[in-house]
């Protein structure tokens, strides 16, 4: 464990993301791509994810307001959102996306609406955690060793 207290805090925070199921192995794959030439790669990709997500969440919200529901359209939007979420390892968000698509397939309007609210909560929670994490990482500064904390 790193002696630098900020870096220790960062390691604990990072571990909690995996232990609590917010992130999966795909996030580790992103970290492995980051290097000295691209020191902010993970944060840059996650920022692009937020942009993709904002657009897709808005599209889904608009689709949920239309009567009757176009389940095919809802499913298509959520399919994209699930893909994006998988790409950064957003495990809980991905799980809710999968559930939403099940409700679309079974044409369950109430299920879709309820699930989408839960999905937005999970997304907001993850975003808040990651924003705090990257802010702390900036304060902690670059690592001196080449080893990634386990």
């Amino acid at each position: 464990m790193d002696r630098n207290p900020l870096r220790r805090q960062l390691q604990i925070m990072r571990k909690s993301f995996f232990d609590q199921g917010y992130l999966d192995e795909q996030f580790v794959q992103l970290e492995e791509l980051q290097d000295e030439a691209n020191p902010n790669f993970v944060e840059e990709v996650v920022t692009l994810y937020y942009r993709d997500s904002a657009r897709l969440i808005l599209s889904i919200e608009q689709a949920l307001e239309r009567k009757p529901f176009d389940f095919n359209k809802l499913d298509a939007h959520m399919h994209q959102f699930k893909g994006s979420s998988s790409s950064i390892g957003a495990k809980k968000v991905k799980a809710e996306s999968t559930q939403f698509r099940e409700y679309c397939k079974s044409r369950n309007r109430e299920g879709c609406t309820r699930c989408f609210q839960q999905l937005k909560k999970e997304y907001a929670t993850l975003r808040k955690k990651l924003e705090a994490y990257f802010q702390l990482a900036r304060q902690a500064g670059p690592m001196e060793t080449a080893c990634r904390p386990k």
Partner: protein
Amino acid sequence: MVLGKASSSSLSMKSDEDVVNNNNNLRVLVVDDSPMIRKLHDMYLKKFGLEVQVAENGKNAVELFRFGASFDLILMDKEMPVMDGAEATKELRAMGVKSMIVGVTSLDSPYEKQVFMEAGLNYCFNKPLIADNISFLLQELNKNNNDKN
């Protein structure tokens, strides 16, 4: 800010330098409407020493070829505006493009993947690509290039 560098298990079979040197002449086109996916795949591929260009949709990809560009490998998303991946793949094959075209999609249904394959793909993987997928594709590309020589 550096979060830490770890050795990739997928690159551990050869030294990083060997892998990069073997792939220095290979050019890849990443076709995807998502800036996030383009960035992610661009980075993965550059780690393997590949030269990467990106296109936002199928139409842009086809136009690159029409204007004389050539690539060893095309990573083709399925769902894109203007021209989707299946249509772009069909056009490229109709133009006589023999490059390896690999579908990269979040399609769930085996039937939909099959339809995409039938457009003229060599392989189809789930999004996002991981290092093992790229290793496999590079092995196939190097195999094909050796066969030609």
